[in-house]
């Protein structure tokens, strides 16, 4: 399949199962150093920081917790696998669910690093608005998710 964009012809190929496996392996291999480094870092943090520290930083303030989570998630980048491992371990250390949820959502929906590419292709205003609304929505999604879970469980 060919699509034409700004004078360029982009070819979209169909994948074979071998190519698909290679693509998956490549994706995981690209993420490997970041995942391993993150696990090593989390292990070190878990060993030196007492659980009471997180409880003192993330008090019972849903909005502030999710704001902090969304902020950290927005400036972080990389494979979502890293965010799940990091978020999950932080939850085990006592960080609140709203903060972790906002962190996970912002990690995958806000793309500060991609803003230049997104602006160039889809427009500056669109790229900025999309990322700003994604940041705010990460906070909203976190609060709603935790509220629903609170009712459900």
């Amino acid at each position: 399949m060919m699509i034409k964009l700004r004078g360029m012809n982009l070819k979209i190929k169909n994948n074979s199962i071998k190519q698909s496996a290679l693509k998956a392996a490549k994706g995981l291999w690209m993420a490997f150093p970041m995942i391993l480094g993150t696990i090593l870092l989390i292990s070190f943090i878990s060993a030196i920081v007492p659980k009471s520290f997180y409880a003192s930083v993330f008090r019972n303030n849903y909005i502030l917790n999710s704001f902090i989570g969304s902020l950290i998630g927005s400036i972080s980048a990389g494979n979502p696998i890293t965010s799940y491992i990091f978020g999950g371990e932080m939850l085990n250390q006592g960080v609140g669910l709203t903060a972790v949820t906002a962190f996970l959502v912002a990690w995958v929906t806000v793309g500060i690093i991609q803003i230049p590419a997104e602006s160039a292709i889809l427009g500056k205003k669109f790229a900025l608005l999309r990322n700003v609304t994604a940041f705010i929505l990460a906070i909203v999604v976190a609060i709603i998710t935790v509220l629903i879970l609170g009712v459900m469980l």
Partner: protein
Amino acid sequence: MKFKEKLKQLPGSWYFLLIVILGYIIISIISTKIYLASLVFFNQIILKVIPIFILVFALMTLSNYFITPKFIIKHLKNKGLKKWFFVIIGGILSSGPIYMWYPLLADLKNKGLNYGLIACFLYNRAIKIPLIPLMIIYFSWQYIFVLLLVMIFASVVQGVLLNKIMEEKFKKIGDKKE
């Protein structure tokens, strides 16, 4: 010289890993207690995630095989409410780096896909089906179920919101021209 060149070609993530390993070497010299405690934590996490990675790999392979950009683009051409539905499904099923999708979305924009639908597609790319097993291990299936539903709802909210704002922007530009 060759080693230096090879080192320069390494992606940033490898530098991150090397710095962390270097940190571990320093800690092993300063405090054996903290070093060993960190390794115990590391071992626990690794044992937890390795089996999941095998499942993630299998799911990623299947997703790469069945869900191609051609398949998604074909379904994004639907009209009306159906369009929103296929944009959500397309976003969830799409794989690969996000920047790979920008030219394709720009092409679809020229063919009538509005800004709201593009935003909705990009938001739903955050939902990665092959990674759900890993999420369930760390969180719970109830949490993942609720989070995914809320995220799909948020993607539509963002789409509608961006459509309104971008439409107003073009309306203002049109008014000024008149």
